[in-house]
């Protein structure tokens, strides 16, 4: 584990560094408070720090305060080294954000014991962060395909539409549905159906750029959001994605299965400032047209093609694959 030793006095710095190296730490040294803060602000910087109270440039408590202001970063466990022992000074040190303090000259065994306390706290933080990230992932992702779930993809689409309107760019929305998916389930069973859904998800993800979004919209429906997509380019990109999903046949435990997808495609630039619900409704209508045209194809949603209503209906799940 990395540890920062910030101490302006060379004998103490070397003594501390050596003692910590013996204890198995990877020691990084700083000769003043400014250098210490720079090290602690690095992305992969040390998470354990021993800071001398009095240092040039920036003293130990000031370093603690600066580190604690960066709320979005991982926790740094900081121990102040001090010859100050009054109650008032101890309180000042801890109030600045230090987790502990050690009086000089330090005792090597006590120092290591106190650092082990810090390591336990950091480990606990790691576990909490991991648990929170797992919960966040489960709340926003579909467990079968690991794609964004409906709520998460709609949320991202809403933000993307705002961004593209602000930057005068266009977002392409592709609403896709696996053709005759019910037959896959009826013929091969739900386990194979799940295999097919997972593979379709993989193919969709592989077909888009790293900054595009793919989500599972419903049972066998998927929503693809192509960010900053040139309107002239959107139909051909959508066609490309559609073909990539269909070819080659999907390998399953019960052999290869041929399947196709239909898509309704919409370019946000063609529709002006509309809500996510309105745009999805139009994409859904275009998808319906693609199904009606024999499936295995895409249709572009066209502004002005329908009589508009003041309160458009929310998109309803349509079991077109049946």
């Amino acid at each position: 584990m990395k540890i920062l030793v910030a101490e302006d006095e060379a004998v103490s710095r070397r003594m501390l560094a050596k003692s910590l190296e013996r204890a198995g730490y990877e020691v990084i040294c700083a000769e003043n408070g400014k250098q210490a803060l720079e090290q602690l602000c690095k992305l992969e910087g040390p998470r354990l720090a021993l800071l001398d109270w009095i240092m040039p440039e920036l003293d130990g408590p000031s370093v603690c305060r600066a580190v604690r202001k960066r709320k979005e970063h991982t926790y740094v466990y900081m121990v102040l080294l001090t010859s100050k022992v009054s109650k008032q000074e101890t309180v000042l040190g801890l109030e600045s954000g230090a987790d502990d303090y050690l009086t000089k000259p330090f005792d090597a065994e006590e120092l290591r014991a106190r650092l082990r306390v810090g390591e336990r706290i950091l480990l606990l933080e790691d576990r909490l962060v991991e648990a929170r990230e797992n919960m966040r992932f489960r709340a926003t992702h579909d467990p079968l395909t690991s794609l964004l779930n409906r709520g998460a993809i709609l949320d991202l689409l809403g933000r993307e539409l705002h961004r593209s309107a602000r930057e005068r760019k266009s977002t392409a929305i592709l609403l896709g549905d696996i053709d005759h998916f019910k037959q896959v389930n009826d013929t091969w069973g739900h386990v194979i159906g799940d295999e097919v859904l997972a593979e379709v998800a993989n193919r969709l993800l592989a077909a888009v750029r790293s900054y595009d979004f793919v989500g599972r919209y419903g049972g066998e429906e998927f929503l693809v959001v192509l960010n900053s997509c040139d309107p002239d380019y959107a139909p051909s990109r959508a066609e490309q994605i559609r073909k990539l999903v269909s070819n080659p046949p999907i390998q399953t435990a019960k052999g290869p299965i041929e399947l196709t997808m239909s898509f309704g495609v919409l370019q946000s630039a063609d529709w002006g400032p509309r809500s996510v619900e309105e745009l999805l409704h139009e994409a859904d209508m275009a998808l319906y047209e693609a199904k009606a045209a024999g499936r295995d194809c895409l249709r572009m949603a066209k502004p002005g093609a329908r009589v508009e209503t003041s309160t458009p209906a929310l998109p309803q799940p349509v079991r077109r694959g049946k």
Partner: protein
Amino acid sequence: MNENNSPLAEAVWNQAALRERVDHDEELLRELLAIFDEDFPRMTKSLEAAVADGDLKSTGTLSHTLKGMLLNLGGERAAAAAAKLESLARTGKEAALNDALGAFQREAASLLPELKAYVPEVRG
């Protein structure tokens, strides 16, 4: 090596405490003494200049640093003298600085021969 006959609790050089602190690592001890040999005269000169100039801030900072260095090396009496200087500087007692500097210089003069005598012992 400690020939401290002073009634003060501190030793001129508490060698045992230093050895304990470095886990009896002779190589590290040699390294630390080499750092001390290089830094101590330079810092002492700066301290003397700060006292002569009546620069309380620099006097406080330098005596604090010297105190830490000496404490780590077991130079307890010299460290106590540096602590006295630091305290006077921080509380603005400029008039008492010269006497306190003299006391510090005397303690340093007692310590240095002990450390220098020890270096060949380490090397040996």
